[in-house]
Protein backbone atom coordinates (compact mmCIF):
# COMPACT_ATOMS: atom_id res chain seq x y z
CA UNK A 1 0.00 0.00 0.00
CA UNK A 2 2.77 2.36 0.89
CA UNK A 3 4.53 1.83 -2.40
CA UNK A 4 1.25 2.62 -4.15
CA UNK A 5 1.14 5.85 -2.18
CA UNK A 6 4.68 6.67 -3.19
CA UNK A 7 3.91 5.87 -6.81
CA UNK A 8 0.86 8.09 -6.72
CA UNK A 9 2.18 11.00 -4.77
CA UNK A 10 5.93 10.70 -4.81
CA UNK A 11 6.19 11.10 -1.07
CA UNK A 12 7.93 8.30 0.75
CA UNK A 13 7.80 7.41 4.42
CA UNK A 14 9.48 9.72 6.89
CA UNK A 15 9.63 12.61 4.50
CA UNK A 16 7.76 15.57 5.86
CA UNK A 17 4.36 15.75 4.24
CA UNK A 18 3.53 18.87 6.22
CA UNK A 19 6.01 21.62 6.89
CA UNK A 20 4.96 24.80 8.64
CA UNK A 21 7.47 27.59 8.99
CA UNK A 22 7.09 30.50 11.32
CA UNK A 23 3.37 30.85 10.76
CA UNK A 24 1.59 33.93 12.03
CA UNK A 25 -2.11 34.38 11.49
CA UNK A 26 -4.87 36.76 12.54
CA UNK A 27 -8.52 36.55 11.45
CA UNK A 28 -9.99 39.66 9.86
CA UNK A 29 -11.21 42.11 12.51
CA UNK A 30 -14.93 42.05 13.41
CA UNK A 31 -15.22 45.77 12.77
CA UNK A 32 -13.47 47.43 9.87
CA UNK A 33 -10.37 49.36 10.82
CA UNK A 34 -9.90 47.52 14.11
CA UNK A 35 -6.95 45.22 14.60
CA UNK A 36 -7.64 41.55 15.33
CA UNK A 37 -5.33 39.83 17.80
CA UNK A 38 -3.09 37.18 16.22
CA UNK A 39 -4.17 33.57 16.84
CA UNK A 40 -0.96 31.89 15.68
CA UNK A 41 2.30 33.54 16.67
CA UNK A 42 5.20 31.87 14.94
CA UNK A 43 4.29 28.19 14.69
CA UNK A 44 6.77 25.83 13.06
CA UNK A 45 6.27 22.10 12.78
CA UNK A 46 6.72 19.16 10.48
CA UNK A 47 4.82 15.94 10.09
CA UNK A 48 6.06 12.89 8.20
CA UNK A 49 3.99 10.34 6.38
CA UNK A 50 3.08 7.45 8.64
CA UNK A 51 3.42 9.63 11.70
CA UNK A 52 0.70 10.39 14.22
CA UNK A 53 1.11 13.70 15.98
CA UNK A 54 -1.17 14.57 18.89
CA UNK A 55 -1.88 18.27 19.27
CA UNK A 56 -2.82 19.32 22.79
CA UNK A 57 -3.79 22.76 23.94
CA UNK A 58 -6.33 24.65 26.00
CA UNK A 59 -9.45 26.23 24.53
CA UNK A 60 -8.47 29.23 22.46
CA UNK A 61 -4.90 28.04 21.90
CA UNK A 62 -5.32 28.15 18.11
CA UNK A 63 -5.62 24.39 17.48
CA UNK A 64 -8.60 24.56 15.11
CA UNK A 65 -7.11 27.58 13.37
CA UNK A 66 -3.92 25.61 12.77
CA UNK A 67 -6.00 22.75 11.28
CA UNK A 68 -7.70 25.15 8.87
CA UNK A 69 -4.36 26.36 7.53
CA UNK A 70 -3.63 22.83 6.30
CA UNK A 71 -6.50 22.59 3.82
CA UNK A 72 -6.17 26.19 2.68
CA UNK A 73 -9.47 27.36 4.20
CA UNK A 74 -7.08 29.77 5.90
CA UNK A 75 -6.28 32.13 4.26
CA UNK A 76 -8.18 31.50 1.00
CA UNK A 77 -11.72 31.61 2.40
CA UNK A 78 -11.16 33.54 5.61
CA UNK A 79 -8.83 36.33 4.58
CA UNK A 80 -6.99 37.86 7.52
CA UNK A 81 -3.28 38.41 8.02
CA UNK A 82 -1.16 35.42 7.05
CA UNK A 83 2.63 35.35 7.35
CA UNK A 84 4.98 32.39 7.08
CA UNK A 85 4.66 29.22 5.04
CA UNK A 86 2.54 26.08 5.05
CA UNK A 87 3.63 23.27 2.75
CA UNK A 88 1.44 20.22 2.23
CA UNK A 89 2.70 17.32 0.08
CA UNK A 90 5.10 19.60 -1.72
CA UNK A 91 2.54 22.34 -2.34
CA UNK A 92 2.62 25.81 -0.87
CA UNK A 93 -0.92 26.34 0.41
CA UNK A 94 -0.78 29.99 -0.61
CA UNK A 95 -0.41 28.83 -4.22
CA UNK A 96 -3.06 26.06 -4.09
CA UNK A 97 -6.83 26.27 -3.87
CA UNK A 98 -8.75 24.61 -1.02
CA UNK A 99 -10.23 22.32 -3.70
CA UNK A 100 -6.82 21.02 -4.72
CA UNK A 101 -5.70 20.72 -1.13
CA UNK A 102 -8.82 18.76 -0.19
CA UNK A 103 -7.44 15.86 -2.24
CA UNK A 104 -4.34 15.83 -0.08
CA UNK A 105 -5.70 16.77 3.32
CA UNK A 106 -8.89 15.55 4.92
CA UNK A 107 -10.14 17.49 7.93
CA UNK A 108 -12.74 16.09 10.30
CA UNK A 109 -14.14 18.67 12.69
CA UNK A 110 -15.43 18.44 16.24
CA UNK A 111 -18.96 19.03 15.19
CA UNK A 112 -19.84 16.48 12.51
CA UNK A 113 -23.14 18.16 11.69
CA UNK A 114 -21.29 21.07 10.16
CA UNK A 115 -20.00 18.83 7.42
CA UNK A 116 -22.89 16.44 6.69
CA UNK A 117 -25.36 17.55 4.04
CA UNK A 118 -26.34 14.59 1.86
CA UNK A 119 -29.55 12.55 1.89
CA UNK A 120 -27.93 9.23 2.72
CA UNK A 121 -24.75 8.04 4.36
CA UNK A 122 -23.75 6.44 1.07
CA UNK A 123 -24.12 9.74 -0.81
CA UNK A 124 -22.20 11.51 1.90
CA UNK A 125 -19.24 9.13 1.59
CA UNK A 126 -19.48 9.09 -2.23
CA UNK A 127 -19.47 12.88 -2.50
CA UNK A 128 -15.69 13.37 -2.36
CA UNK A 129 -14.68 10.51 -4.69
CA UNK A 130 -17.41 11.57 -7.15
CA UNK A 131 -16.06 15.09 -7.22
CA UNK A 132 -12.72 13.59 -8.28
CA UNK A 133 -14.52 12.01 -11.25
CA UNK A 134 -13.28 8.51 -10.40
CA UNK A 135 -14.70 5.51 -12.27
CA UNK A 136 -17.90 4.11 -10.66
CA UNK A 137 -16.36 0.81 -9.55
CA UNK A 138 -13.53 2.69 -7.84
CA UNK A 139 -16.03 4.94 -6.09
CA UNK A 140 -17.98 1.87 -4.99
CA UNK A 141 -14.83 0.20 -3.65
CA UNK A 142 -13.89 3.31 -1.69
CA UNK A 143 -17.34 3.60 -0.16
CA UNK A 144 -17.26 -0.04 0.94
CA UNK A 145 -13.79 0.34 2.41
CA UNK A 146 -14.55 3.57 4.26
CA UNK A 147 -17.84 2.28 5.69
CA UNK A 148 -16.13 -0.93 6.82
CA UNK A 149 -13.27 0.96 8.43
CA UNK A 150 -15.69 2.99 10.51
CA UNK A 151 -17.99 -0.01 11.11
CA UNK A 152 -21.06 1.76 9.74
CA UNK A 153 -21.91 -0.45 6.75
CA UNK A 154 -25.34 -1.01 8.30
CA UNK A 155 -26.08 2.74 8.20
CA UNK A 156 -25.41 2.99 4.47
CA UNK A 157 -28.94 3.93 3.41
CA UNK A 158 -29.89 6.01 6.45
CA UNK A 159 -30.09 9.79 6.51
CA UNK A 160 -27.00 11.22 8.26
CA UNK A 161 -29.14 13.75 10.04
CA UNK A 162 -31.24 11.05 11.72
CA UNK A 163 -28.19 9.42 13.32
CA UNK A 164 -26.85 9.85 16.83
CA UNK A 165 -23.95 12.24 17.47
CA UNK A 166 -21.35 9.49 17.52
CA UNK A 167 -22.70 7.84 14.40
CA UNK A 168 -22.57 11.18 12.59
CA UNK A 169 -18.94 11.55 13.60
CA UNK A 170 -18.14 8.17 12.08
CA UNK A 171 -19.90 9.14 8.85
CA UNK A 172 -17.83 12.32 8.64
CA UNK A 173 -14.67 10.27 9.15
CA UNK A 174 -15.69 7.73 6.53
CA UNK A 175 -16.34 10.55 4.04
CA UNK A 176 -12.77 11.78 4.57
CA UNK A 177 -11.25 8.31 4.36
CA UNK A 178 -12.95 7.75 1.00
CA UNK A 179 -10.79 10.59 -0.37
CA UNK A 180 -7.69 8.64 0.70
CA UNK A 181 -5.87 11.80 1.71
CA UNK A 182 -2.15 11.83 2.50
CA UNK A 183 -2.84 13.79 5.62
CA UNK A 184 -5.77 13.26 7.92
CA UNK A 185 -6.49 16.09 10.33
CA UNK A 186 -8.77 15.11 13.18
CA UNK A 187 -9.98 18.07 15.21
CA UNK A 188 -11.21 16.39 18.40
CA UNK A 189 -12.96 13.69 16.41
CA UNK A 190 -13.90 11.49 19.34
CA UNK A 191 -15.32 14.00 21.79
CA UNK A 192 -18.92 12.96 21.30
CA UNK A 193 -18.21 9.29 20.74
CA UNK A 194 -18.99 6.57 23.23
CA UNK A 195 -16.09 4.41 24.43
CA UNK A 196 -16.72 1.85 21.68
CA UNK A 197 -16.79 4.63 19.09
CA UNK A 198 -13.56 6.09 20.48
CA UNK A 199 -11.94 2.68 20.29
CA UNK A 200 -13.06 2.27 16.69
CA UNK A 201 -11.66 5.69 15.75
CA UNK A 202 -8.35 4.83 17.42
CA UNK A 203 -8.26 1.49 15.69
CA UNK A 204 -8.95 3.22 12.39
CA UNK A 205 -6.13 5.72 13.03
CA UNK A 206 -3.66 2.94 13.79
CA UNK A 207 -4.74 0.90 10.80
CA UNK A 208 -4.64 3.84 8.40
CA UNK A 209 -1.18 4.71 9.49
CA UNK A 210 0.01 1.13 9.16
CA UNK A 211 -1.63 0.38 5.84
CA UNK A 212 -1.51 3.67 3.99
CA UNK A 213 1.32 5.60 5.57
CA UNK A 214 -1.15 8.43 6.06
CA UNK A 215 0.14 11.24 8.25
CA UNK A 216 -2.24 12.06 11.07
CA UNK A 217 -2.58 15.27 13.00
CA UNK A 218 -4.85 14.53 15.92
CA UNK A 219 -6.23 17.34 18.06
CA UNK A 220 -7.48 15.86 21.30
CA UNK A 221 -8.18 16.52 24.95
CA UNK A 222 -8.21 12.83 25.78
CA UNK A 223 -4.79 12.42 27.26
CA UNK A 224 -5.51 8.86 28.43
CA UNK A 225 -5.60 7.86 24.78
CA UNK A 226 -2.64 9.88 23.51
CA UNK A 227 0.07 7.49 24.76
CA UNK A 228 -1.71 4.57 23.07
CA UNK A 229 -1.56 6.11 19.61
CA UNK A 230 0.65 9.15 19.14
CA UNK A 231 4.30 9.05 18.10
CA UNK A 232 4.80 12.65 19.06
CA UNK A 233 2.95 15.24 21.12
CA UNK A 234 2.78 19.00 20.70
CA UNK A 235 1.48 21.49 23.21
CA UNK A 236 0.07 24.63 21.63
CA UNK A 237 -0.90 27.52 23.89
CA UNK A 238 -1.62 31.15 23.10
CA UNK A 239 -0.63 30.58 19.50
CA UNK A 240 2.80 29.16 20.24
CA UNK A 241 4.27 25.67 20.50
CA UNK A 242 5.45 25.29 24.08
CA UNK A 243 6.36 21.60 24.26
CA UNK A 244 7.18 19.00 21.68
CA UNK A 245 8.42 15.44 21.93
CA UNK A 246 7.57 11.82 22.56
CA UNK A 247 4.60 11.23 24.92
CA UNK A 248 6.82 10.20 27.87
CA UNK A 249 8.86 13.36 27.64
CA UNK A 250 5.94 15.73 27.19
CA UNK A 251 3.81 14.23 29.97
CA UNK A 252 6.81 14.40 32.28
CA UNK A 253 6.29 18.19 32.11
CA UNK A 254 3.19 17.82 34.25
CA UNK A 255 3.38 21.27 35.84
CA UNK A 256 3.56 23.00 32.49
CA UNK A 257 0.59 21.01 31.16
CA UNK A 258 -1.49 21.60 34.28
CA UNK A 259 -0.55 25.26 34.27
CA UNK A 260 -1.95 25.47 30.76
CA UNK A 261 -5.22 23.86 31.81
CA UNK A 262 -4.60 20.41 30.38
CA UNK A 263 -5.47 17.01 31.74
CA UNK A 264 -2.82 14.41 32.46
CA UNK A 265 -3.26 10.72 31.70
CA UNK A 266 -4.73 9.18 34.86
CA UNK A 267 -1.73 6.84 35.15
CA UNK A 268 0.56 9.87 34.97
CA UNK A 269 -1.40 11.44 37.86
CA UNK A 270 -1.04 8.22 39.80
CA UNK A 271 2.72 8.13 39.18
CA UNK A 272 3.03 11.68 40.50
CA UNK A 273 0.97 10.75 43.55
CA UNK A 274 3.34 7.83 44.25
CA UNK A 275 6.51 9.79 43.52
CA UNK A 276 5.53 12.53 45.97
CA UNK A 277 4.77 10.05 48.75
CA UNK A 278 7.14 7.19 48.16
CA UNK A 279 10.13 8.96 46.67
CA UNK A 280 9.81 6.77 43.59
CA UNK A 281 10.53 7.78 40.04
CA UNK A 282 7.59 6.29 38.14
CA UNK A 283 6.63 7.65 34.74
CA UNK A 284 3.56 5.62 33.84
CA UNK A 285 1.28 6.45 30.95
CA UNK A 286 -0.53 3.12 30.59
CA UNK A 287 -2.36 0.84 33.01
CA UNK A 288 -0.09 -2.10 32.10
CA UNK A 289 3.06 -0.17 33.03
CA UNK A 290 1.68 0.73 36.44
CA UNK A 291 0.38 -2.81 37.03
CA UNK A 292 3.80 -4.26 36.26
CA UNK A 293 5.75 -1.92 38.55
CA UNK A 294 3.27 -2.12 41.42
CA UNK A 295 3.03 -5.90 41.29
CA UNK A 296 6.80 -5.90 41.69
CA UNK A 297 6.70 -3.35 44.49
CA UNK A 298 4.08 -5.27 46.48
CA UNK A 299 5.43 -8.72 45.71
CA UNK A 300 9.06 -7.77 46.33
Amino acid at each position, binding site marked *: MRSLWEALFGVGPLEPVITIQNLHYAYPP*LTAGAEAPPVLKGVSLSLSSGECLALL*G*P*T*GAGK*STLCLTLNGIIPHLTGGTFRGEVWVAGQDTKESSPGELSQRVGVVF*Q*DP*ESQLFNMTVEDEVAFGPESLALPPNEIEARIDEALDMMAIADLRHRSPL*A*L*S*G*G*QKQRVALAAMLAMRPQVLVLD*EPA*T*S*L*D*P*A*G*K*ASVLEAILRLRRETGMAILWVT*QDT*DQVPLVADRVLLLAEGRILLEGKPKGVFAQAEEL*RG*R*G*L*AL*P*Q*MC*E*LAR*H*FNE*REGTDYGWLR*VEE*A*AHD*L*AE*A*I*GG
Partner: protein
Amino acid sequence: MAEPAIELQRCSYRYEAAIPALQEVSCGIRAGTWAAVIGQNGSGKTTLAKLCNGLLRPDEGRVRILGQDIAGQPVSRIARHVGYLFQNPDHQIFAASVWEEVSFGLRNLGFLAAEIEERVEEALALFGLEPYADHPPAMLGYGLRRQVTVASLFALRPPVLILDEPTTGLDWGATQVLLGRLAELHGAGHTVVLITHDMRLVAQRAQWVLILHQGRLLIEGPPRELFAQTELLARVSLNPPPITRLAQKLRTLGMRGDSLTVEEFYRDYAAVKGEAQS
Protein backbone atom coordinates in the same frame (compact mmCIF):
# COMPACT_ATOMS: atom_id res chain seq x y z
CA MET B 1 -35.78 9.83 52.23
CA ALA B 2 -35.79 12.76 49.84
CA GLU B 3 -38.50 12.84 47.20
CA PRO B 4 -37.41 12.07 43.66
CA ALA B 5 -36.39 15.14 41.67
CA ILE B 6 -36.96 13.15 38.50
CA GLU B 7 -39.24 10.18 38.23
CA LEU B 8 -40.01 8.25 35.07
CA GLN B 9 -42.73 5.60 35.05
CA ARG B 10 -42.65 3.16 32.18
CA CYS B 11 -41.73 5.83 29.66
CA SER B 12 -41.50 4.98 25.98
CA TYR B 13 -40.66 7.28 23.12
CA ARG B 14 -40.34 6.65 19.41
CA TYR B 15 -38.93 9.05 16.80
CA GLU B 16 -39.91 8.32 13.23
CA ALA B 17 -37.65 5.29 13.09
CA ALA B 18 -39.15 1.83 13.56
CA ILE B 19 -37.14 1.14 16.68
CA PRO B 20 -38.22 2.99 19.82
CA ALA B 21 -35.59 5.31 21.29
CA LEU B 22 -36.80 4.55 24.81
CA GLN B 23 -38.76 1.54 25.95
CA GLU B 24 -40.57 1.33 29.24
CA VAL B 25 -37.92 3.13 31.23
CA SER B 26 -38.69 3.55 34.89
CA CYS B 27 -36.22 5.29 37.15
CA GLY B 28 -36.00 7.80 39.93
CA ILE B 29 -33.29 10.28 40.81
CA ARG B 30 -33.58 11.56 44.34
CA ALA B 31 -33.47 15.30 44.95
CA GLY B 32 -29.96 16.48 45.76
CA THR B 33 -28.28 13.56 44.00
CA TRP B 34 -25.40 13.91 41.58
CA ALA B 35 -26.36 11.35 38.95
CA ALA B 36 -24.77 10.21 35.70
CA VAL B 37 -26.43 8.68 32.67
CA ILE B 38 -24.10 6.58 30.56
CA GLY B 39 -24.47 4.26 27.59
CA GLN B 40 -23.52 3.92 23.96
CA ASN B 41 -24.32 6.46 21.25
CA GLY B 42 -27.94 5.96 20.35
CA SER B 43 -28.84 4.23 23.64
CA GLY B 44 -31.46 6.87 24.49
CA LYS B 45 -29.61 9.19 26.88
CA THR B 46 -30.52 12.44 25.18
CA THR B 47 -34.10 11.26 24.60
CA LEU B 48 -34.41 10.58 28.32
CA ALA B 49 -33.12 14.07 29.11
CA LYS B 50 -35.57 15.69 26.70
CA LEU B 51 -38.48 13.86 28.31
CA CYS B 52 -37.46 15.47 31.60
CA ASN B 53 -37.58 19.02 30.27
CA GLY B 54 -40.66 18.58 28.13
CA LEU B 55 -38.94 19.04 24.76
CA LEU B 56 -40.23 15.54 24.03
CA ARG B 57 -43.38 14.02 25.51
CA PRO B 58 -43.53 10.30 26.20
CA ASP B 59 -45.71 8.18 23.89
CA GLU B 60 -46.51 6.17 26.97
CA GLY B 61 -45.70 6.60 30.63
CA ARG B 62 -45.40 9.49 33.06
CA VAL B 63 -42.70 12.00 33.92
CA ARG B 64 -42.72 13.67 37.33
CA ILE B 65 -40.40 16.54 38.18
CA LEU B 66 -40.18 17.45 41.87
CA GLY B 67 -43.30 15.40 42.42
CA GLN B 68 -45.38 17.06 39.69
CA ASP B 69 -46.57 15.29 36.57
CA ILE B 70 -45.38 17.52 33.72
CA ALA B 71 -47.81 16.21 31.12
CA GLY B 72 -49.60 19.25 29.72
CA GLN B 73 -47.18 21.75 31.29
CA PRO B 74 -45.62 24.11 28.76
CA VAL B 75 -41.85 23.87 28.29
CA SER B 76 -41.42 27.41 29.63
CA ARG B 77 -43.02 26.34 32.92
CA ILE B 78 -40.92 23.18 33.22
CA ALA B 79 -37.85 25.36 32.57
CA ARG B 80 -38.31 26.94 36.00
CA HIS B 81 -37.47 23.58 37.54
CA VAL B 82 -35.27 21.86 34.99
CA GLY B 83 -32.32 23.48 33.25
CA TYR B 84 -31.01 21.67 30.24
CA LEU B 85 -27.65 22.01 28.51
CA PHE B 86 -27.76 20.73 24.95
CA GLN B 87 -25.07 18.37 23.67
CA ASN B 88 -24.38 20.74 20.80
CA PRO B 89 -24.11 24.38 21.89
CA ASP B 90 -25.24 25.52 18.46
CA HIS B 91 -28.65 24.00 19.09
CA GLN B 92 -29.33 26.60 21.73
CA ILE B 93 -27.30 29.64 20.74
CA PHE B 94 -29.28 32.24 18.85
CA ALA B 95 -28.83 35.70 20.41
CA ALA B 96 -26.89 38.57 18.89
CA SER B 97 -24.52 38.94 21.82
CA VAL B 98 -23.16 36.78 24.61
CA TRP B 99 -24.81 39.06 27.16
CA GLU B 100 -28.22 38.64 25.54
CA GLU B 101 -27.75 34.91 25.24
CA VAL B 102 -26.88 34.45 28.90
CA SER B 103 -29.71 36.73 30.05
CA PHE B 104 -32.38 35.15 27.82
CA GLY B 105 -33.71 32.57 30.27
CA LEU B 106 -33.90 35.09 33.08
CA ARG B 107 -35.76 37.65 30.95
CA ASN B 108 -38.09 34.92 29.80
CA LEU B 109 -38.93 33.93 33.34
CA GLY B 110 -39.65 37.53 34.25
CA PHE B 111 -36.76 38.32 36.56
CA LEU B 112 -36.25 41.98 37.50
CA ALA B 113 -33.67 43.94 35.52
CA ALA B 114 -31.33 44.44 38.49
CA GLU B 115 -31.40 40.74 39.33
CA ILE B 116 -30.79 39.82 35.69
CA GLU B 117 -27.84 42.18 35.50
CA GLU B 118 -26.30 40.79 38.65
CA ARG B 119 -26.72 37.15 37.66
CA VAL B 120 -25.47 37.62 34.11
CA GLU B 121 -22.39 39.54 35.23
CA GLU B 122 -21.68 36.83 37.77
CA ALA B 123 -22.11 34.01 35.24
CA LEU B 124 -19.91 35.76 32.67
CA ALA B 125 -17.20 36.22 35.29
CA LEU B 126 -17.43 32.61 36.46
CA PHE B 127 -16.79 31.26 32.99
CA GLY B 128 -14.27 33.78 31.74
CA LEU B 129 -16.69 35.36 29.29
CA GLU B 130 -16.43 39.00 30.37
CA PRO B 131 -14.24 39.97 27.40
CA TYR B 132 -16.83 38.53 25.03
CA ALA B 133 -20.01 40.07 26.49
CA ASP B 134 -20.72 42.06 23.31
CA HIS B 135 -19.50 39.43 20.85
CA PRO B 136 -21.94 37.44 18.73
CA PRO B 137 -21.72 33.99 20.34
CA ALA B 138 -21.91 32.22 16.98
CA MET B 139 -18.54 33.78 16.08
CA LEU B 140 -16.72 32.30 19.08
CA GLY B 141 -14.71 29.06 19.06
CA TYR B 142 -16.40 25.82 20.06
CA GLY B 143 -15.05 25.79 23.60
CA LEU B 144 -16.20 29.36 24.21
CA ARG B 145 -19.62 28.69 22.65
CA ARG B 146 -19.93 25.81 25.10
CA GLN B 147 -19.01 28.16 27.95
CA VAL B 148 -21.74 30.57 26.84
CA THR B 149 -24.39 27.85 27.12
CA VAL B 150 -23.05 26.75 30.49
CA ALA B 151 -23.13 30.35 31.74
CA SER B 152 -26.75 30.64 30.58
CA LEU B 153 -27.67 27.62 32.65
CA PHE B 154 -25.82 28.93 35.71
CA ALA B 155 -27.52 32.28 35.50
CA LEU B 156 -30.84 30.43 35.90
CA ARG B 157 -29.74 28.05 38.67
CA PRO B 158 -32.79 25.77 38.43
CA PRO B 159 -33.29 23.08 41.11
CA VAL B 160 -32.60 20.32 38.59
CA LEU B 161 -29.75 20.64 36.09
CA ILE B 162 -29.40 18.17 33.24
CA LEU B 163 -26.19 18.55 31.27
CA ASP B 164 -25.77 16.59 28.04
CA GLU B 165 -22.05 15.93 27.62
CA PRO B 166 -21.09 19.30 29.08
CA THR B 167 -17.34 18.70 29.06
CA THR B 168 -17.16 17.94 25.35
CA GLY B 169 -14.90 20.52 23.74
CA LEU B 170 -13.78 21.94 27.07
CA ASP B 171 -10.17 21.65 28.12
CA TRP B 172 -9.27 20.25 31.52
CA GLY B 173 -9.01 23.64 33.17
CA ALA B 174 -12.44 24.72 31.95
CA THR B 175 -13.84 21.30 32.90
CA GLN B 176 -12.54 21.73 36.46
CA VAL B 177 -14.16 25.16 36.69
CA LEU B 178 -17.47 23.76 35.48
CA LEU B 179 -17.29 20.80 37.88
CA GLY B 180 -16.40 23.11 40.74
CA ARG B 181 -19.48 25.25 40.07
CA LEU B 182 -21.67 22.18 39.74
CA ALA B 183 -20.28 20.90 43.04
CA GLU B 184 -21.29 24.19 44.70
CA LEU B 185 -24.81 23.93 43.36
CA HIS B 186 -24.96 20.27 44.33
CA GLY B 187 -23.78 21.21 47.81
CA ALA B 188 -26.61 23.76 47.98
CA GLY B 189 -29.15 21.02 47.28
CA HIS B 190 -29.52 21.13 43.49
CA THR B 191 -29.94 17.88 41.61
CA VAL B 192 -27.27 17.38 38.94
CA VAL B 193 -27.64 14.91 36.10
CA LEU B 194 -24.67 14.47 33.77
CA ILE B 195 -24.94 12.63 30.51
CA THR B 196 -21.39 11.67 29.72
CA HIS B 197 -18.94 9.24 28.17
CA ASP B 198 -16.19 10.27 30.56
CA MET B 199 -15.78 7.41 33.01
CA ARG B 200 -13.16 9.25 35.05
CA LEU B 201 -15.73 11.94 35.66
CA VAL B 202 -18.41 9.40 36.57
CA ALA B 203 -16.07 7.67 39.02
CA GLN B 204 -15.04 10.92 40.66
CA ARG B 205 -18.36 12.67 40.98
CA ALA B 206 -21.45 10.55 40.48
CA GLN B 207 -23.38 9.13 43.44
CA TRP B 208 -25.80 7.25 41.24
CA VAL B 209 -25.34 5.92 37.73
CA LEU B 210 -27.91 4.83 35.17
CA ILE B 211 -26.79 2.71 32.23
CA LEU B 212 -29.01 2.81 29.18
CA HIS B 213 -28.74 0.21 26.46
CA GLN B 214 -30.82 0.10 23.31
CA GLY B 215 -33.48 2.31 24.80
CA ARG B 216 -33.86 0.38 28.03
CA LEU B 217 -32.53 0.93 31.52
CA LEU B 218 -29.95 -1.84 31.80
CA ILE B 219 -28.96 -1.26 35.42
CA GLU B 220 -28.65 1.56 37.96
CA GLY B 221 -26.60 1.91 41.11
CA PRO B 222 -23.59 3.56 42.75
CA PRO B 223 -20.53 3.74 40.45
CA ARG B 224 -18.43 1.43 42.63
CA GLU B 225 -20.94 -1.37 42.23
CA LEU B 226 -21.49 -0.84 38.52
CA PHE B 227 -17.80 -0.61 37.65
CA ALA B 228 -17.27 -3.98 39.38
CA GLN B 229 -19.57 -5.62 36.85
CA THR B 230 -16.91 -5.85 34.18
CA GLU B 231 -18.67 -8.47 32.07
CA LEU B 232 -21.91 -6.54 31.94
CA LEU B 233 -20.00 -3.35 31.08
CA ALA B 234 -18.02 -5.07 28.34
CA ARG B 235 -21.25 -6.31 26.81
CA VAL B 236 -22.35 -2.70 26.30
CA SER B 237 -18.83 -1.53 25.33
CA LEU B 238 -18.21 0.43 28.52
CA ASN B 239 -14.93 0.38 30.36
CA PRO B 240 -14.19 1.50 33.92
CA PRO B 241 -11.68 4.38 34.16
CA PRO B 242 -7.93 3.52 34.05
CA ILE B 243 -7.51 3.68 37.84
CA THR B 244 -10.33 1.19 38.43
CA ARG B 245 -8.97 -1.14 35.76
CA LEU B 246 -5.55 -0.98 37.42
CA ALA B 247 -7.09 -1.76 40.79
CA GLN B 248 -8.94 -4.72 39.31
CA LYS B 249 -5.71 -6.07 37.79
CA LEU B 250 -3.99 -5.91 41.18
CA ARG B 251 -6.78 -7.56 43.13
CA THR B 252 -4.82 -10.83 43.13
CA LEU B 253 -2.15 -9.08 45.20
CA GLY B 254 -4.61 -8.44 48.02
CA MET B 255 -5.88 -5.02 46.95
CA ARG B 256 -9.58 -4.17 47.22
CA GLY B 257 -9.76 -3.73 43.49
CA ASP B 258 -12.56 -1.16 43.41
CA SER B 259 -10.76 2.21 43.60
CA LEU B 260 -12.52 5.07 41.86
CA THR B 261 -9.85 7.74 42.28
CA VAL B 262 -6.06 8.03 42.41
CA GLU B 263 -6.22 8.98 46.11
CA GLU B 264 -8.32 5.95 46.97
CA PHE B 265 -6.03 3.66 45.04
CA TYR B 266 -2.98 4.96 46.85
CA ARG B 267 -4.56 4.51 50.30
CA ASP B 268 -5.44 0.94 49.40
CA TYR B 269 -1.95 0.30 48.06
CA ALA B 270 -0.29 1.75 51.15
CA ALA B 271 -2.42 -0.48 53.39
CA VAL B 272 -1.53 -3.62 51.45
CA LYS B 273 2.13 -2.67 51.27
CA GLY B 274 2.19 -1.99 55.02
CA GLU B 275 0.68 -5.40 55.75
CA ALA B 276 3.16 -7.14 53.47
CA GLN B 277 6.06 -5.53 55.31
CA SER B 278 4.85 -6.19 58.86
